[in-house]
């Protein structure tokens, strides 16, 4: 890093946010309780009236209705799997044959940091290694209490990048959350395109080159990148690595086929500034600012693409309670974002694409976990009634499906094949754990129980990692 003369300016940042109209939450909840209660009552009356006319007993009714529900669940599961695989295949095929080169507009990389002193220097070094001729780095220190400000100040200046000098600036502001920190960086940036990332993430060398070419289409407002788990070689982080490949990136490829990615991941998202302006920038009223900004951009009619070669390597939680805490926050944040845009759920005439996306998010966040928990509970109960083999066959069926999907996704992304065996207990333990957390988060969100943001304790274990120089899809980070 080069020593340079720095200038300090006092600035005032615009802290306003576009406010959504105030909602009467109590009234909304009462309405939901009333409607669901009324529907349940109606169904119970129908059962009470019609059951004596059939040969079914109460226990028989419970068993048959559960089996019907599970069969429907299985069909939905299969439909979802195969449609995602087909669409992802079509997207990757289209992606492979398409060539868009020679578009290099100026880009600002915004790095919001909060107590990331341990890993900030490493993150900035990875950013300086990006193969792109025309970009700057803006670090936004969101009121850190550790040595982040000092470390950040050391890297401010014109630093030698891979192809040119790169300007690194720093904004020190009071703590206000990630969305406000990103807004501060966007305010200062004069570029037409901004890349928003997490302070703990590292980007692959060709992220900007591969990501920016989608903006050749003037209707593309944002591009979602490919998030990879960096700290592997542990059971929990390997399971998360598999989940990122199979459960997050593959659906994102499928959504990229229709240019409607539903969540631009926090660790890497490239935005057209005018799309952000249309959307009213980041808001801090949800715990998933990435889901919220994505829905707002889609709402304004912009398209959102996916770029598998724009990779961000992020540090995944290494302890179970950290992981569950992260998922708890994600679920509540996504539910908050869905609720914020709920007018699109019931009215497809406003923006059909948004309705489609919101229903799929609703399914992923609410219906899927509920059905998975129900299926497992059903088989536990069935086992006590002497049908223990049912549990085994259900698990074998789901496991084979997961293994097939894992092989496909890992082959498509040229990921590590050693992750495939994890699919044996991926659904049985990992996904069930996460689904239970999701269900609890959903109940708490509905009850309106307050929550705090929380912060993942960084171990700095990724500091020994060097990003491969010019990775294509699947060329992974190398440990030195």
């Amino acid at each position, binding site marked *: 890093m080069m020593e340079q*003369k*720095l*200038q*300090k*300016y006092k*600035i*005032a*940042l*615009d*802290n*306003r946010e576009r406010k959504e109209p105030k909602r009467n939450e109590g009234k909304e909840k009462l309405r939901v309780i009333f409607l669901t209660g009324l529907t349940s009552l109606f169904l119970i009356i129908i059962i009470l009236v019609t059951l004596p006319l059939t040969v079914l007993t109460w226990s028989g009714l419970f068993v048959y209705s559960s089996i019907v529900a599970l069969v429907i669940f299985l069909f939905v599961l299969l439909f979802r799997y195969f449609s995602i695989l087909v669409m992802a295949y079509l997207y990757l095929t289209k992606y492979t044959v398409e060539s868009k080169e020679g*578009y*290099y*507009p*100026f880009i600002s990389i915004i790095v919001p940091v909060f107590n990331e002193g341990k890993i900030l220097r490493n993150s900035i070094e990875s950013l300086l290694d990006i193969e792109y001729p025309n970009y700057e780095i803006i670090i936004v220190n969101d009121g850190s209490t550790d040595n982040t400000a000092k470390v950040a*100040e050391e890297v*401010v*200046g*014109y630093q030698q990048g891979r192809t*040119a000098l790169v*300007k690194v*600036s*720093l*904004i020190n*502001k009071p703590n*206000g959350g990630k969305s406000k920190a990103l*807004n501060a960086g*966007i*305010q*200062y940036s*004069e*570029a037409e395109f901004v890349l928003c990332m997490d302070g703990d993430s590292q980007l692959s060398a060709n992220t900007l080159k591969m990501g920016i070419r989608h903006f*050749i289409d*003037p*209707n593309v*407002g944002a591009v979602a990148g490919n998030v990879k788990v960096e700290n592997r070689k542990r059971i929990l982080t390997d399971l998360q690595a598999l989940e990122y490949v199979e459960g997050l990136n593959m659906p994102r490829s499928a959504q990229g086929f229709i240019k409607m990615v539903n969540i631009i991941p926090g660790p890497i998202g490239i935005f057209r500034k005018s799309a952000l*302006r*249309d959307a*009213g*920038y980041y808001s801090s009223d949800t715990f998933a600012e990435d889901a919220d900004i994505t829905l707002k951009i889609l709402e304004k*009619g912009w398209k959102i693409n996916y770029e598998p070669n724009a990779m961000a390597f992020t540090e995944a939680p290494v302890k179970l*309670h950290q992981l*569950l805490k992260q998922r708890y926050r994600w679920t509540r944040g996504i539910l908050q974002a869905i609720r914020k845009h709920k007018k699109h759920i019931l009215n497809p005439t406003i923006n059909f694409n948004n309705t489609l996306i919101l229903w799929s998010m609703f399914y992923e966040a609410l219906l899927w976990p509920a059905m998975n928990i129900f299926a*497992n509970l059903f*088989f*536990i109960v069935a086992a006590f009634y002497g049908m*223990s*083999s*049912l*549990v*085994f066959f259900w698990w074998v069926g789901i496991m084979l499906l997961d293994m097939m999907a894992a092989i496909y996704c890992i082959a498509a992304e040229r990921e590590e094949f050693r992750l495939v065996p994890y699919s044996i*207990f991926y659904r*049985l*333990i990992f996904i*069930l*754990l996460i689904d*239970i*957390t999701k269900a609890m988060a959903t109940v708490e969100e509905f009850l309106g129980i307050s929550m*705090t943001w*929380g912060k993942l304790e960084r171990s700095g274990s990724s500091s020994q990692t060097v990003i491969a120089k010019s990775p294509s899809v699947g060329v992974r980070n190398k440990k030195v």
Partner: protein
Amino acid sequence: MELIPILSLIVLVATISTFILAVGAYILYKVRERKGKAAQAPQPSSIPAELISPTPVIAEQHTGAGMRRTYEEPYPTRDRVTEYQRSPMYEQQRAQAGPEMRPTYVSSPPPSTGSSGRYATSAEDRYSTSERKKFMRYTKDGYVEPTKEIEKKKKEDQLKWR
């Protein structure tokens, strides 16, 4: 002994253990979270901050073309595309969106680092350029104001007439 009942038992135990683990982790999380709760402070409309940036290099100060090189863009940008290709955000909505956020410099601002006309110094300038272009005619010489073009044509006509 048959294999399937044994495997079923393993799966069953794993499933029940997972349930217990998840509920235990949830209770632990709630207990930990309860320890540090803070009330949310009211949000002011602007917040003071500090900007640290390097001293602009000479090329940047004089020509503004030092660090921010502009590459020839063979592809259409939103300013260049026709109106119907733009995002379906209507003008009324655009007006409601409010001004673009820009930081206010309390001390003297750094010199603009804009490399070309694309990077205007303020949002107003940027807006005005793009807004103005809407009422301009695009010719082989670039954007031309219609009044100037009419005058030019008149002159040409006069020349021909003579």
